[in-house]
């Protein structure tokens, strides 16, 4: 599949209220191309509350319910329960997909309880966290997803803590589908939504969403920054189904040694939120710490990959 094969139908209309280079609008546009018109969508307080356009206009081609900040998982549960009833009553010939859309604030922080509850109940929806790694809608304050050393308006010398790994928290819930995605790998992202659509139960997809004003880079560089996140190993692309994780696209190529992993500073130095790591002088300590963490993750991933290849080699030996 190639970009030109994506459906032409636009369910996120142009002329909406998003910032220039807004990653969540790109993610939403691709997601809706995959899910199609037969979708019920709910959005909690986030940039997407704004970018959909104010009353009485709307940029959405699917029905959209705006809900309070902490409710994403619960609102999705309510829609899913109603859809179940309506399908049984014959109101819908074809079961609509329930799409829950939230930012990292609504997912990692204020909304984690409702999401965890819904996932434990295996509520039938696709949950999307578009992760711009801060409370961008209120002007970029730290969130549980903000990476170590990143500037935000309330971590002016750089965040002192490491972000939590929400996708792995969702894997631990034992739900049928968890995936991470990147705007720089649109076909990978699109196909993950297509696969998720065919599964019933709670499906979680997290999209890294480089935010030009929040991360402080030119609005034309959203895709470039998204790609660097994967190429440096700062963002992993994978999907998890039935107890197995498969790494995809750029991350897979790094693990298999088909592409060279770039140093993290290639990713850090193009973003103003990490400027204090390079100006007025290089903060070797913090840059090295970030690099060490990524290296450790990849050591494990590469080792596991080589072991698997090795075992397969043994299995494929002819019987004696």
């Amino acid at each position, binding site marked *: 599949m190639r970009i030109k094969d994506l459906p032409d139908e636009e369910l996120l209309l142009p002329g909406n209220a998003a910032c220039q280079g807004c990653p969540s609008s790109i993610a939403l546009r691709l997601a809706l191309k995959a899910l199609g*018109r037969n*979708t019920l969508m709910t959005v909690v307080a986030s940039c997407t509350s704004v970018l959909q356009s*104010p009353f009485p206009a*709307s940029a959405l081609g699917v029905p959209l319910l705006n*809900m309070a900040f902490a409710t994403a998982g*619960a609102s999705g549960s309510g829609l899913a*329960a*109603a859809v179940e009833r309506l399908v049984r009553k014959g*109101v819908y010939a074809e079961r609509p997909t329930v799409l829950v859309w939230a930012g990292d604030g609504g997912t990692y922080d204020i909304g984690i309880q*409702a999401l965890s509850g819904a996932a434990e109940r295996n509520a039938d929806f696709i949950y999307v966290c578009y992760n711009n790694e801060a409370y961008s809608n209120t002007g970029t304050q730290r969130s549980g997803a903000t990476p170590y050393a990143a500037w935000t308006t309330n971590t002016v010398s750089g965040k002192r803590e490491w972000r939590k790994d929400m996708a792995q928290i969702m894997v631990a819930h034992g739900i049928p589908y968890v995936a991470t995605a990147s705007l720089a790998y649109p076909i990978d992202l699109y196909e993950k939504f297509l696969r998720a659509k065919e599964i019933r139960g709670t499906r979680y997809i997290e999209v890294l969403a480089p935010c030009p004003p929040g991360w402080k880079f030119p609005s034309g560089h959203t895709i470039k920054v998204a790609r660097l996140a994967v190429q440096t190993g700062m963002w992993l692309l994978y999907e998890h189904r039935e107890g197995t994780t498969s790494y995809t696209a750029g991350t897979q190529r790094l693990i298999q040694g088909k592409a060279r992993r770039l140093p993290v500073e290639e990713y850090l130095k193009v973003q103003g939120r990490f400027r204090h790591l390079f100006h007025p002088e290089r903060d070797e300590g913090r840059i090295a710490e970030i690099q060490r963490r990524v290296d450790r993750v990849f050591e494990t991933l590469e080792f596991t990959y080589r072991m698997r290849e090795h075992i397969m080699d043994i299995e494929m030996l002819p019987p004696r």
Partner: protein
Amino acid sequence: MRLVETGNHVVAHAVRLARVEVVSAYPITPQTQVVEKISRFIEEEGFECEYIPVESEHSAMAAMIAAAAAGVRAFSATSAHGLVYMYELLHWAAGSRLPMVMANVNRALGPGWNIWCDQQDTMSARDTGWIQIYCSTHQEILDTVIQAYRVSEDPSVFLPVMVCYDAFTMSHTYMQVDLPDQEAVDRFLPPFRSPWRMDPRFPLTHGSVIYPQDYEETRFSIYRAHEAAKEVIRRAAEEYRDLVGGYHGDLVETYFMEEAEHAVVAVGSLALEARVAAEELRRAGHPCGVVRIRTYRPFPSEELRRLLGKMRTVVVLDRAVSFGLGGILASEVRATLGGEGPRPVSVIAGLGGRDVPYTLIAERTEAAIKGQAMEEEWPTLALSDRHRVSKEALRALGEVSEA
């Protein structure tokens, strides 16, 4: 069919009769039996309904709003801490103009942990935009839950309705209840109606950013819907009597008010105690009646002005406090009368489930009739001068604690 059931179980029966399609609730004492019974109906008796066992009340209300938005009849039940935990979404539900019904068992708020009767929980949520109806018998709970859907789904209303009843004195006691026929209820309550619903064929966006020039219009439309609800509640009560059977008053219910000169105003089960007290006072030669406020929001101001304006004495019983003003209900009755008729005496009693015997109501009402009552009384308070807690006494208490 005649049953002997708890108030909580009666709610579950009403939910089934109303053909609710999605129930979303979190257990809390003393509401727990409601959700237990509903889940039994679903699992063991073929009640066709989706039950979402959410992880919190905040989520219970969110899921209920979303279910109603998708186009099904939704129900929840809660109490006290559960209700205040969903406070944000009480506003969201009413602002969404989505019909739905929730039962609330009136219970005290901590600390300390107190599971007994108190009306601070719902009365603190009076301005959320929900219609609130308070019951005083089990039969009334059953009939009101069914009527509540009719009111909620009326095109001139389209607002959520809360049906309230007292912890333990009503939730856990057994009373005789007549269960109406399903056919009769179906005649009274048509299938779910809602002003809008999420439908991929007609993609609407609901609840997006709204600027000042439009926001105020939405608030006024809720205000107007509450005004319209007064007539809808009256009509629903009458039609229910004709089609199903059972009548418990509409906005208010009155006892012995025809030739009364003194009135006790109360809500919930306290009104039944007040009725016994009024009977006793009448035997003692005081023509005393009782006004039970059934519909608390919209507030029945016209009825109260008509009923109380000519009284010589008005006593208002409260299981809820508005700090600096007396009882919540008393302060509202005073504001409604606005100097017309006597200055209502505010009797705050029975907070956190403390017993309020009818003898005490009779005694304090008689004191009010004789002009011997304080403006605010806390007659069940455990102080040496328990019937006479004046503002001076409270001030003196403050001085003691400062010293």
